[in-house]
């Protein structure tokens, strides 16, 4: 469904603009449709990119920031039955802030016959709460068939007291053959700037004689979704506009300017306060080495109750607690609670009081987006960490993050950009990139194989680093029963469907540095396939689970993982009586320099088999050109994992 789009980042508009809005823009006439060409009518597929359900033949979006008006026109060619869904149109709008009107639509058959739309529009309420009302205008087009052309247009009038920053989503989910965008700036707001993302080289808007900006693009591929892809906003070709007062300001100057106030506020919040100095003295000993001091201060900051963890609470519950805001770090001590920024700034204050060079850092978390400083938009910076100078290194820490151990950042704050707020103003920084050694999963199995092929025994799983942090955070609000159920479901996914699994013990839920340790028992009925004289069993007990992401040969986008990882499996398998090893898979390993690591070995020690397997990926972002190599790696790994241990019945072998 192609909605009418807008990014609603409202900024107050001077009252002067109000009277301008009283001027009405020329209404679009119902019958001023551009005539479809014979070629458009005859199209059976997209010649530039065959095999889609539909394509956008033409889009035109015209904004006038002086009037707060945008008109959109879209013409779509339908190719398949599935593509008919594009004939159901929804135009979202905020009731009371904007209005959608002058909606016109029609269907054109391949023979050129025009079927007029009956004009029936439904207003569907999506959400109404606390004076806020979000609705859609919805309608559908008649007689839509494969090869039909549908087209519609409408006008959105924003409330004159607000204006939305214009964003041109040049790349839609559907292929766009041609699109024209125009924005007429409101010079009262300053000079209009723009930033282009993922657009072909040289694609940029042109300033027109009347002051408007205009961009025409052709043959823009549709944005398709794939598993393990970067955030769609990082891939979608778009142009973002914004107003600035000072046209000559550089990006660096912008960040210094806009963060100056933030740095000052931060300094005021932190200050140089006696209560903080006392708190720091209480925590550290004079003879502690710097790193121990820092660890103790970190532990102290982590004791502060993070109000962000109360997310499930309703407003009434919060109000009943009568929580007061923290105006400074002393309030954090006094109240014993704070927001994530409060806690991290409290930690910075403690560190400074203990003699460290420490600053507060605003960052863009990876679960949201990547940092684009050139966009000159402070709203990107929605998370925060602390940075402390220790010896000659900067150590990034996030004590506000529940269960996050010292020396560690949660995955979404690793390898991200941000702004360090210091006395000099600000500095653009990047947090350290994540490493596979920071996310390790150990799986140990001690099992006995029975002559009928059943496998039974004990197992242990240790989650370390990011794995442990992620589990602890995900299960934070769960009780023991819920946690065991979730863990059981997770571990069962590594095993054949008929596996019987019981968790006997779990430790480490409440800590942050120790592994999350799970142990239990396991029965795998008919794990080894009996052939009569032999038992065949796969080399690995646990499935790796990653190869499923690499089944398709073609891929459109880079592979993007949350964090690099290592898996270490150790299996100790007791052989059944009456069987001897006939054949074991050979050891295998990837080159040490490879970003993708795999090693496996299987050895016989008496009546035991010892299988050791290590696998992992170093890196989180794999450009498209590496997809083939990555796919081959996972396919080869899966094939190796499926190699068979062959046991022979001694009795059968002795038969003549």
């Amino acid at each position: 469904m192609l909605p009418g789009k807008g990014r609603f980042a409202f900024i107050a508009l001077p009252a002067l603009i109000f009277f301008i809005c009283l001027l009405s823009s020329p209404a679009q006439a119902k019958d001023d449709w551009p005539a479809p060409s014979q070629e458009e009518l005859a199209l059976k597929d997209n010649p530039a990119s065959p095999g889609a359900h539909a394509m956008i033949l033409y889009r035109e979006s015209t904004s006038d920031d002086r009037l707060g008006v945008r008109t959109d026109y879209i013409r779509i060619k339908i190719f398949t039955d599935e593509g008919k869904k594009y004939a159901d149109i929804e135009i979202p709008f905020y009731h009371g802030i904007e209005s959608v009107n002058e909606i016109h639509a029609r269907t054109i058959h391949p023979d050129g016959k025009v079927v007029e739309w009956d004009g029936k529009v439904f207003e569907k309420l999506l959400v109404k709460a606390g004076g806020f009302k979000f609705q859609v205008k919805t309608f559908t087009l008649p007689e839509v068939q494969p090869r039909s052309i549908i087209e519609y247009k409408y006008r959105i009038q924003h409330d004159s007291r607000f204006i939305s920053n214009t964003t041109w989503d040049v790349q839609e989910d559907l292929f766009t053959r041609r699109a024209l965008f125009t924005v007429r700036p409101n010079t009262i707001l300053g000079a209009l700037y723009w930033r282009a993302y993922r657009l072909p080289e040289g694609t940029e808007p042109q300033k027109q004689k009347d002051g408007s900006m205009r961009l025409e693009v052709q043959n823009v591929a549709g944005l398709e979704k794939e598993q393990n892809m970067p955030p769609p906003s990082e891939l979608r070709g778009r142009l973002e506009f914004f107003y600035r007062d000072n046209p000559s300001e550089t990006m660096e100057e912008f960040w210094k300017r806009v963060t100056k106030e933030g740095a000052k506020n931060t300094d005021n919040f932190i200050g140089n306060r006696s209560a903080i100095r006392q708190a720091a003295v209480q925590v550290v000993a004079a003879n502690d080495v710097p790193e121990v001091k820092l660890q103790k201060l970190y532990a102290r900051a982590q004791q502060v109750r993070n109000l962000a963890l109360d997310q499930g609470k309703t407003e009434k519950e919060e109000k009943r607690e009568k929580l007061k805001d923290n105006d400074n770090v002393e309030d954090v001590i006094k109240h014993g609670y704070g927001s994530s920024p409060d806690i991290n700034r409290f930690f910075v204050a403690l560190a400074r009081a203990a003699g460290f060079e420490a600053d507060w850092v605003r960052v863009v978390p990876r679960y949201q987006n990547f940092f684009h400083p050139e966009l000159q938009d402070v709203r990107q910076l929605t998370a925060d960490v602390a940075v402390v100078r220790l010896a000659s290194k900067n150590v990034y820490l996030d004590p506000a993050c529940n269960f996050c151990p010292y020396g560690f950042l949660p995955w979404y704050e690793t390898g991200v950009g941000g702004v360090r707020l210091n006395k000099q103003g600000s500095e653009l920084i990047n947090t350290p990139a994540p490493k596979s050694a920071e996310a390790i999963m150990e799986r140990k199995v001690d099992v006995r194989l029975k002559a009928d092929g059943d496998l039974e025994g004990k197992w242990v799983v240790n989650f370390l680093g990011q794995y442990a942090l992620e589990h602890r955070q995900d299960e934070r609000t769960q009780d023991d029963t819920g946690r065991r159920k979730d863990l059981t479901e997770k571990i069962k996914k590594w095993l054949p469907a008929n596996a019987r699994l019981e968790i006997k013990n779990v430790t480490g839920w409440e800590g942050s540095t120790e592994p999350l340790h799970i142990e239990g028992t396991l029965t795998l009925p008919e794990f080894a396939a009996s052939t009569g004289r032999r038992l065949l069993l796969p080399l690995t007990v646990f499935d790796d689970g990653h190869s499923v992401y690499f089944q398709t040969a073609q891929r459109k986008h880079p592979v993007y993982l949350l964090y690099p990882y290592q898996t270490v499996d150790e299996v100790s398998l007791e052989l059944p009586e009456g069987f001897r090893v006939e054949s074991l898979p050979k050891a295998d390993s990837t080159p040490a320099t490879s970003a993708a690591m795999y090693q496996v070995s299987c050895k016989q020690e008496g009546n035991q088999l010892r299988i050791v397997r290590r696998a992992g990926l170093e890196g989180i972002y794999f450009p498209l050109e590496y997809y083939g190599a990555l796919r081959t790696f996972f396919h080869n790994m899966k094939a190796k994992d499926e190699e068979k241990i062959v046991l022979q019945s001694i009795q059968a072998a002795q038969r003549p």
Partner: protein
Amino acid sequence: MRKKLSCSQYKPRNARSLVLCVLSLAWIGAAGISRAAAPEWLRTAARESLPNYPKETVAVLLLSEQMTTVRENGEIETLYRRAYKILRPEARERYGTFAVDFDKDTRLSNMKAWCLPATGNEFEVKEKDAVETGFSEELYNDTHHKVLTIPAAVPGNVIGYEYVQRKRPYVLQDEWWFQRTIPVRRARFWLKLPAGWEFDSFWANFKGPDLRSNGENQYVWELENIPAIEPEPGMPAWLALAGRLAVKYFPRDPSLREQNRASWESIGKWYAGLIASRRDATPEIKQKVSELITGKTNALDKMKVIASFLQRQIRYVAIEIGIGGYQPHTAGEVFTHHYGDCKDKVTLLSTMLHEIGIESYYVLVDTNRGIVLPEFPSAMSFNHVILAIRLPEAVTGEGLFASQNHPKIGRLLFFDPTDPYTPLGYLPSSLQKNYGLLIGPEGGELVGLPLLPPASNRLLRTAKLTLNLNGTVSGEVEEIRWGAPAADQRALFLRTAPAERAKVLEHLLGSSLAGFALTKATIVGLEEYDQNLVVRYEFVAQNYAKTAGTLLLIRPRVLGNKGSDVMEKQERKYPVEFAEATLHSDLFEFTLPPGFVVDELPAPLKTEFEFGKYSSKVEARGNTLRYERLYEIKDVTKENFTQLKKFFQQIAADERSNAILRREAP
């Protein structure tokens, strides 16, 4: 519970995130703390002594109460009350937020909720604190929902809410669904009727208690300690298992009383009234019929072309306002727009068939088996409409599996024009062995819908493969499907953009193979829904056969998984329901690499139960290995879990079995 005939299950459910968004917004309560004044009914419920529940139990429904007052004018006012004791954290998400429907015919009032924390200090929230949404999967539906979140729905606390719905229903019936996925400590249903009115009641899936009179024409049913129905994989529809009480009310006026008697016949008459004059053919419809049947000489071909027109050229779009949830648009409107919902499509199809001299009848159905109960006629049992087409005697064509004889009308062919991929002659799986209310000329008649034979839902897979010395398997596969497997596969391919369809095949192969490359693929009959769907492809799978010393181990079952997760549990409470009766067969031939001979082959397997059978065998013929198997499900429901488990365990073991080849000594 309100049901409409809108069949939204055919719409892609891609907007759940929006619903979640709405629910999450419901956390935003209105500002200000009102002093809580929890009602006595909630305090009483909170004091209930509770039996020991399994530790997995997330909450217990302490009280579920429904108080229905029927007024002389047919208006019904119902007070709903619920009280929960929260036992585990995940209950907050499931029970801490509730939603109530309303529309222009159903007024909502007195919506309130409370929390009685174990530590005291109660909370109260009211209707003004609720979030309102009109979100629906239809293009438009006039039903709105108020969503309210109750504070502090955490373990140890008791929460409760009540609201009143006032409506004048189209049918004088009510349903009380008292069983849940959590245990219910106490459930009560009150009924207050005007003097002289009568009622009829029916218990489904539950043995109800004796009726208590509670004053003049006032009645109450009360249940205690109702067990939870916990979801199990493969179980029938949850609603088909849950206990419910259905009640019909009969006015004092004898004529109205008869009208509301709610026999299947009278429900049919009521619906016949709604569809009267909806099937008038306009000149445009007549012209279209004439155009469609040009060149078609027999009735079946004409029926097929019209049915296909409805399936493919009338787009599914649901717009429901008031009675529009039950009453179709006129055939003329549907044809003009070329869109409509299930009842609209049935209306136009029936109209067009009439133009070629073929009569047809609306059939009201529920898309879940077990909801429609023959013993209790109810207009609230249906959520979908299909068509029964009276087959002319001349129509004797094969492949009309979904037909059966009706003693008065003759041979009827059931057809669902809303299902885009199930052609004339077949019936969507969920409707088979189900019930439908046939809206005939003399009213309604409940009829059983046919279960199509296994051979009508067929997958025939053959492969010619070559195994080389290093274990690589390559070759070509042909899969021929008809019936339900064809409809399912078509849906999968057609919903995917043509350029991406190879990926569908790769994902399917990926469930059986590691390290494969799809080298060629063609699909035949994808757009011809009444033809077999034939998929031919070629692949190379490196390291498929595993080398072990001088042995080469190969799993003959290269493709296709018949395994089922019903094996996972040690025991289960509910039957397993299969989608349809079906018959699948695989025939794979491997050319073996030179120098290898067969050392060991898996033993043949043959197993048969009342509900299904399975057989497989591997044979060596010269340098060829031949694997053959057959999988048949004969019926759709099976209660004997022991048999079922054994059946699938044998299949799973067979699917893992290997043939062992040995390198011959030089």
